[in-house]
């Protein structure tokens, strides 16, 4: 998978959609160290300071039902990767696409589709709170990070590679 990395970007989903519309090939990943306009469902702001893991995947052409299944599977993938790397953490999946630790959100997944008579493009964005030390007051009771739970920094690169590998495997299994 090709990974296009940005130090700072408005939103990895916005960039991935732009690239996808311009023909950039599937499984290209847009990765950012930070986002200034990261968003979740219904345009809600996603807190995206440096340290977290923010990326979007241009998915292969698919139908909308498979895009939905893959979004749900992505939540399982993230939870599994967290569990396998950090045995002290017990992630919980809040279907369809949130991952929580002790009732606080640690990951959000947003899939966006462009649809005419069929699905033209699907982009899956994942925001995972990895190395975030603190959250603003309004998010303190709703969000957490792996760093807060583990008490130390973790490798974004390692976590990203594991997540991407599993998502691609699951996509190939549901698309047969």
């Amino acid at each position, binding site marked *: 998978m090709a990974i296009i990395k940005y130090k700072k970007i408005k939103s990895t989903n916005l960039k991935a959609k732009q690239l996808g519309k311009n023909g950039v090939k599937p499984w290209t990943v847009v990765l950012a160290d930070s986002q200034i306009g990261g968003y979740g*469902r*219904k345009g809600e702001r996603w807190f995206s300071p440096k340290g977290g893991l923010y990326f979007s995947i241009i998915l292969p052409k698919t139908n*909308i*039902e498979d*895009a*939905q299944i893959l*979004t749900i599977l992505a939540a399982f993938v993230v939870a599994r990767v967290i569990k396998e790397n950090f045995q002290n953490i017990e992630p919980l999946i809040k279907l*369809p*696409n949130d991952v929580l630790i002790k009732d606080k959100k640690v990951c959000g997944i*947003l*899939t*966006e*589709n*462009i*649809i*005419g*008579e*069929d699905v*033209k493009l699907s982009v899956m964005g994942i925001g995972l709170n990895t190395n975030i030390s603190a959250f603003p007051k309004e998010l303190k009771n709703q969000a957490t990070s792996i760093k807060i739970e583990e008490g130390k920094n973790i490798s974004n690169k390692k976590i990203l590679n594991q997540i991407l590998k599993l998502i691609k495997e699951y996509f190939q299994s549901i698309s047969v």
Partner: protein
Amino acid sequence: MKTNLKIGDKIYKIEILEIDNNIIKVAVDDEEYFFKQDGEDIILLEENEIFSLFGFDEEEKNLHYIGEEKVIKAPISGTISKVFVKNEQKIRKGDIISILFSMKMENEIIAESSGIVKKLKIKEGDTVNKGDILIILE
């Protein structure tokens, strides 16, 4: 709910969708049937009853049969969270018409043909079903 039903050697695609006002739509392959719950009875709606329930007036009822009008239909069921066009606006192929929130995903609905918006049939907050007309173009 979607499923396949095998009767004899034939397999039918079945979709059952609950719509407002105690209305259920049952699609068997490409045929759609609307049922209404009336007390303990489930009643098959006649075509003119379907039109009156969904608020089509006489003019729109005729439009339903006109194949030459260009229409943009909802490709999936969901809730309209944003509308980007208005009546008499010129749109081009590829323009975003609306954002449709469906299946916990955000879906940009784009125009597959150009034209002028003759009638915009949606607003933010509307629930639409797959196949519902969103825009009539001229």
